[in-house]
């Protein structure tokens, strides 16, 4: 009988301990999601700025990002700067800062289809002297239409052949963001 009492006491106390309040759960808006990539292109020597943007309002949700491309002038060099935002947070969180802080673990890569532009890393390097690529320049070639593809890799192998020069082929790592912008060069 004694044992039954012991069991009962254990049971009741355990239930009381864990009968937690009925509060609603705390909402989570992920802070590593990149909802928005904006690239501002400022032509060397003056002219209109061009803004490329990919905005994914629901992050990892079902709605695909809205991508806005741009029209660039032929044979012109643009200074480009990338801004990554998480607009699920309020105010929006600037993820570019995190990338800059962990510069040695991140690198942007640029490539194109159908066009003949030249991309060059600019701005600060990481602590090993390797490029990060938040800032870069684009030298457009002749007129045409195509895409610019911007990829951010997390933990790429920056020492692998060609990676420092911006070739993604041997970079490895994981893709943090990858956007294709439709571009017209005229």
């Amino acid at each position, binding site marked *: 009988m004694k*044992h039954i009492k012991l069991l009962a006491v254990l049971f009741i106390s*355990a*239930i009381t301990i*864990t009968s937690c309040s009925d509060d609603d759960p705390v909402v*989570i808006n992920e*802070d590593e999601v990149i909802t928005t990539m904006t690239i501002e292109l400022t032509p060397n020597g003056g002219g209109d700025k061009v803004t490329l943007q990919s905005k994914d309002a629901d992050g990892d949700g*079902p709605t695909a990002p809205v991508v806005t491309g741009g029209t660039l002038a032929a044979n012109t060099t643009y200074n480009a700067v990338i801004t990554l935002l998480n607009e699920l947070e309020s105010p929006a969180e600037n993820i570019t800062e995190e990338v800059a802080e962990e510069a040695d673990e991140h690198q942007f890569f640029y490539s194109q289809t159908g066009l003949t532009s030249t991309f060059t890393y600019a701005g600060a390097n990481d602590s090993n002297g390797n490029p990060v690529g938040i800032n870069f320049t684009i030298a457009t070639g002749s007129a045409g239409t195509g895409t610019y593809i911007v990829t951010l890799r997390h933990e790429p192998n920056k020492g692998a052949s060609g990676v420092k020069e911006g070739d993604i082929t041997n970079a490895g790592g*994981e893709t943090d963001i*990858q*956007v294709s912008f439709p571009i017209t060069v005229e």
Partner: protein
Amino acid sequence: MKSKRIILILLLLLSYSNVKGQNCKHTFSGLVEDFHDKSPIVGATVFIKNQNKYVVTDFQGKFSIPKVCSGKIIVEISHVACDPQTLELNISADIYKIIDLEHHEEELNEVNVKGAIGLKTKTAQETLIKTQTLEKFSGASLGDALKNITGVSSINTGNSIVKPVINGLNGSRVLVSFNNVRLQDQEWGIEHAPNIDVNAAKTISVVKGANALQYGGDAIGGVVIINPVKSVIDKDTLYGKSIISQQTNGRLFSVTTSLNKSYKSGWFVNGQASFKRAGDFEAANYNLSNTGINSKAFTFNIGKKQFEKGFELFYSYLSNEIGILRASHFGNVADLVDAIESPIPLFINDFSYDIDNPKQDVTHHLLKAAYYKRFKGLGKLSLQYDFQFNNRLEFDRRIGDNKNLQAVDLDLTTHNFKSDFQLDSNPNHLYKFGLSALYQDNFPDPITKVRRLIPDYKRFSFGSYAIADFKFDDLVFSAGIRYDLEHIDAKKFYLQTRWDNLNYQNDFSHIIIDPNAPGSQLLTNPKFTYHNVSTSLGLTYNLDAKNSFIVNYGLANRAPNPSELFSDGLHHSAARIEIGDLRMQTETSNRFSASYMYNSDKLNITVEGFYNHIKDFIYIEPTGEETTNRGAFPVWSYKQVNAQLFGVDTNISFQPTNNIVLTNKSSLLKGKDLSGNRPLIDIPPFKTVTSLVFKKENWKNFYASIESEFNAEQNEFPNNNFQAYLPLEDRFVTVDVSTPPSAYHLLNFSTGLDFKLSKTKLNLNFSVDNILNESYRNYLNRLRYFADDLGRNFKIQLKINY
């Protein structure tokens, strides 16, 4: 001896004088009967020690001793099959006494069938793995040990996360009971292994199909019953065991030790602890980076066990830190294509014991308090309360301040109370009844800063069952029925876009409790109640001494689990978007099975067949892709179809001489989606394992065994390949997530010896797995896209019994 005689003579003299001096005209009569079933015990000796009178009970169990002198008498009642009992009585008149003897020494909850000691069921397809076999898996996992049973395979995430698959079914469909406690862990995903240390088990039995209704009604796949070491009753004893294992692959070291102490009074205490540490495992040609494991576990058990009543307190702790192959972590579909196309993993580092992200860190606490009491002529009542706390942390490769922060943090707290009553007064008619009530709370900690894949929920369940076993001469018949009520009350945030995408706006608008949560989210309160009925009918028929049959039918209903209902979003550790469905219905399985067994001195054959029709079978498979800023991700959705599973398992062992045993275990399984008329995903291919064992008891129990394991290629699989656009290469590719890997054949060897050192017994085993260092991939390994399975492995194990 001499002193005894003197006492005897003295006693005789004393009694003689008593006869003279006292009134010796009383009659002591009575009945000796079985404690359980009140049946008379024939031929029991009733001995009045201090008057040196004895008689033997007659065919009715009755006895009568005339001319008993008044005063105190000491009576000893004994029978060959019983524990002796001593009574002290004061005689002043004629006396009639009913004496109950404990006619069975073994615990009655372990219902034993002739030749099948330890099995929990009599009429189900059940297989038992004994301690000796389990010990070989001291350094491995529960899932690995279970694969010893025909019809049991595993679904893996690498080689340390091993989930048992019984006749093609896994996860929530396989119930794991540890020391009579149903394991409540977050069992739903492929990468969630059961939280059990195989070293804590003395025996494990697997019941295929839901024929162990006592444990639950939803075990469509089967029940794994794990029994820890049971203490010896009524003996003063102390014994223990240690096993030390070392293996080359992963440079694994494991040690497990247990100690048991029991007293004649019934008190017992025992404890067991295990530690396992491995670094990166190796495939045939390369290192599998970040696949180490760090595991700690212990159990502690104390109680008092007497025949009539007893109680027990049991605590078990398990902590597993498991690395997940670094190369299996990728960013988007383009990365996945690279990984699939690459013949070797994209990350290969040198060996290390370090466990880096991605990894899992799972902790499981189990506390049980149990009490039992037997009632004369009736049966046994058992009461049990158990508490479980499971904390699951999954670490991802994250950036910034969250680098070392877990991406999944689930706390599952469960209280369970159950009572069982067993009517065993008639050994040929056994009845069991039980009730259980459960309260469970799942708390996904927002600390992760990652949207919850599994929401907050509370679950209540109530179950009741009745089982009857009838035994006739050559026939055992059992029938059972169970009812389960399950209620789940969840609080979940949905992205507005996901909500609309799943078309919930019409059907589920009433569950929205906050339509304006930050980040365009909805807070909802889904509540579901399920009523499930399960039944089983089984028949065992012994044709003659060598041939027997088992036929069985089981109806099982399983309510959808939280992952099937609620999964929503990017599962980082799998880099896939997983989508559950609130519309999921209970799945219903109708399983027919039949087994034929032939047992002779030299040859043992078991052939088991089953057909399982599952209505509204829930499973997850790739259904396309979704694009985010990170790129495209494969989408895996839970689906519900009518399905059938059909399989044959055979187990043959042939012993031409005392020294040689040849065995073969084979399993063939077919799974089909009847709604879509296509094969089911993740069905294990044909497998056959043949082994040749040579043993010689005279040579210190020497044995040597060579084993050949053949896994065929799965040629029936659904084509879930999808097209993905690779922006960098400006082309579409087919992402082949469907094609199973090729067939493979492995050779394994093991050998061992026993040594006796006074009171200690030493056992030394040596084995080699994958002798030929074969490169292979297993269809049911989630990491098969990224790397090969384990290469050659030398193992040495030392076992000490004391």
